[in-house]
């Protein structure tokens, strides 16, 4: 294994837990879904590095694509942005208004 392949794997291995943590930690549901999709695609690349292209295919299609689309649909139905009352989403809304008035 070459050095660049090793570094690539290390970056993947370091990025995954950070991303997983931020998916779980964030209180803005939409942000969590967007991060979850990114997380699924990162896992797909990790499967690729483990020489399992078929699993990577399934992870990308089901884990990131289908689940992501279903979660987005769910968010649309429950209206995440406006109904989740928490300090995190309040500040996110504030940011948004600021952006609109800028």
């Amino acid at each position, binding site marked *: 294994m070459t050095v660049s392949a090793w570094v690539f794997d290390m970056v993947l291995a370091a990025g995954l837990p950070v991303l997983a943590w931020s998916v779980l930690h964030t209180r803005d549901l939409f942000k969590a879904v967007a991060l979850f999709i990114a997380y699924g695609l990162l896992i797909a690349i990790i499967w690729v590095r483990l020489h399992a292209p078929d699993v990577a295919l399934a992870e990308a299609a089901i884990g990131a694509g289908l689940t992501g689309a279903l979660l987005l649909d769910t968010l649309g139905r429950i209206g995440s942005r406006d109904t989740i009352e928490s300090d995190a989403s309040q500040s996110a809304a504030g940011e948004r208004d600021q*952006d*609109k*008035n*800028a």
Partner: protein
Amino acid sequence: MTIWDWLSTALLLIGAFFFFAGTLGLLRFPDVYNRLHALTKADNVGLGLTVLGLAIQSGSWVIALKLLLIWLLVLVTSATAAHLIANAALYDHVQRWRRS
């Protein structure tokens, strides 16, 4: 290294630069419309150059055609996706940034 190797190396490097510029635009540009410009255009050129560089190295016509097909698919989806996002942003009254 033959001349083809050099050419494909150069194409891959320039392609990577375009991806970097796209990410930079995504982070630096002031509103979602401008960011869409950066992401779609720069990344598509980056992918096109990458595909070209790899096609030279692949040494097979079928693989080159398949790479081209993937690039075309990305072109169509990203142009459509950019339009959809911009359209939705306008519909949602996301304010446009103006130079003051």
